[in-house]
């Protein structure tokens, strides 16, 4: 499995680059995940604001609602939940796609044409993930913050100035950087697990189904474990 990852990194930087396929993958992993990311992000922010407001009110610190929504979103929930969402929406589909290509001999057909399947199937997906994961995480954070704004300011009566000025005061560039590092790491881990499981799928429909399940479970586990270790590194 490690050799698979090393190979995909090697071919990422070895020309020729497949830009057309890369654009297609960005569209599939990224653009098509936007709706669900917006939905998830906005409700995550709304829940954070609702719970945070009532908790902060007990200690008389409602004014800190902005950072109470933004910090966990940017540092933890944004990268983790957007990675989990992309895994569910795109990761499983990628495993199934590659798995079906394997059992219908399309991968053998590429090899027989003296073309490297790694370059055509895996690398564009990996690169697309590196581009798309941070962008979708940023989108998740953004709509989450506005979800929190909607609940905190529009529903619970906090002033908009307080919400954003406190956020500006407490959120540093460092927090944003941590979020980006995490999303990049999750992007690599998710695509690694999903592509590997699809590429080495078992026989028939059962093999693809098993590979898809394993890919999703492995991705979720990798995201949560690596999030803990990245957390200890960046805390």
């Amino acid at each position, binding site marked *: 499995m490690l050799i698979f990852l090393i190979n995909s990194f090697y071919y990422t930087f070895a020309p020729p680059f497949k830009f057309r396929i890369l654009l297609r993958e960005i569209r599939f992993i990224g653009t098509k995940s936007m709706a669900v990311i917006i939905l998830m992000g906005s409700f995550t922010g709304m829940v954070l604001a609702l719970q945070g407001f009532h908790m902060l009110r007990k200690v008389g610190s409602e004014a800190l609602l902005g950072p109470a929504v933004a910090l966990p979103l940017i540092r933890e929930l944004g990268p983790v939940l957007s990675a989990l969402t992309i895994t569910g929406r795109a990761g499983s589909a990628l495993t199934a796609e590659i798995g*079906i*290509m394997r059992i*219908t*001999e*399309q991968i*053998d*057909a590429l*090899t*027989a*044409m*003296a*073309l*490297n399947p790694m370059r055509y199937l895996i690398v564009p997906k990996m690169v697309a993930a590196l581009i798309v994961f941070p962008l979708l995480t940023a989108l998740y954070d953004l709509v989450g913050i506005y979800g929190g704004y909607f609940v905190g300011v529009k529903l619970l009566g906090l002033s908009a100035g307080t919400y954003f000025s406190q956020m500006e005061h407490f959120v540093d560039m460092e927090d944003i950087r941590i979020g980006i590092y995490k999303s990049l790491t999750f992007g690599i881990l998710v695509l690694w697990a999903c592509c590997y499981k699809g590429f080495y799928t078992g026989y028939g429909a059962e093999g693809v189904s098993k590979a898809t399940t394993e890919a999703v479970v492995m991705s979720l586990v990798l995201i949560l474990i690596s999030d803990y270790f990245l957390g200890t590194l960046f805390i």
Partner: protein
Amino acid sequence: MIEIINLRKSFQGQEVLKGVNLRISQGELIAIIGESGGGKSVLLKHLIGLLRPDQGNVIVDGEDITDLGRRELDRIREKFGVVFQGGALFDSFTIYDNIAFPLREKTKLPEDEIHRKVEEALEDVGLLGVEQKYPSELSGGMRKRVALARALITEPKVVLFDEPTTGLDPIKLHAIHKLIVDTHRKYGFTGVMISHDIPEIYEVVDRIAFLFEGVIEVVGTPEEIMHSDDRIVRQFITGSLKGPIKTVHSI
């Protein structure tokens, strides 16, 4: 052209090929027949290095490909075209893009020249007009013809056919066989075809090799196979349940 020497291959302790020897001459069309699950496709995949043998050698144009690295193997693979069992067309590409794909990736031909070649290939297989369709929109027979067009587009020296007629009705089966004979005549490639189509195959190929229990039991012209005295060959070509080949009834 191709020489297979004492080829052995096992999967999970089960030996599928037990020392296959076969020599295929340039320009001939040879069929490999044998029991289902007897290792014919495994043998075919060794010819282009999709599988590596446990023992033995595969010589292509005088070069032993058994231990070649990926780059060297790719150089050998450029001499081959392969028609896979289910066609192995790329689902997400149109028929036009499927056929144009090897040219776009392996040559520097301008797009108008690629267009001309794709149209010619589609005309050869009698499928003009389906360029913008996707593989899922075609019948099994049409997909196999597209696969043949894609395999021939780079004008390979050798074409491997993995059961090109499986699942087709008798008319489409004859149509595919005629197509293979016609394109073989036109392009002069060396053809290796895995087939179960007895007796139809007698009219198509120059020689037939019978793979049985992991070895080539008999090789000969269709005439020789038809009149073979070998009990195993006789049982296989007549489809008899009685004889040395184990069947459901004799197990």
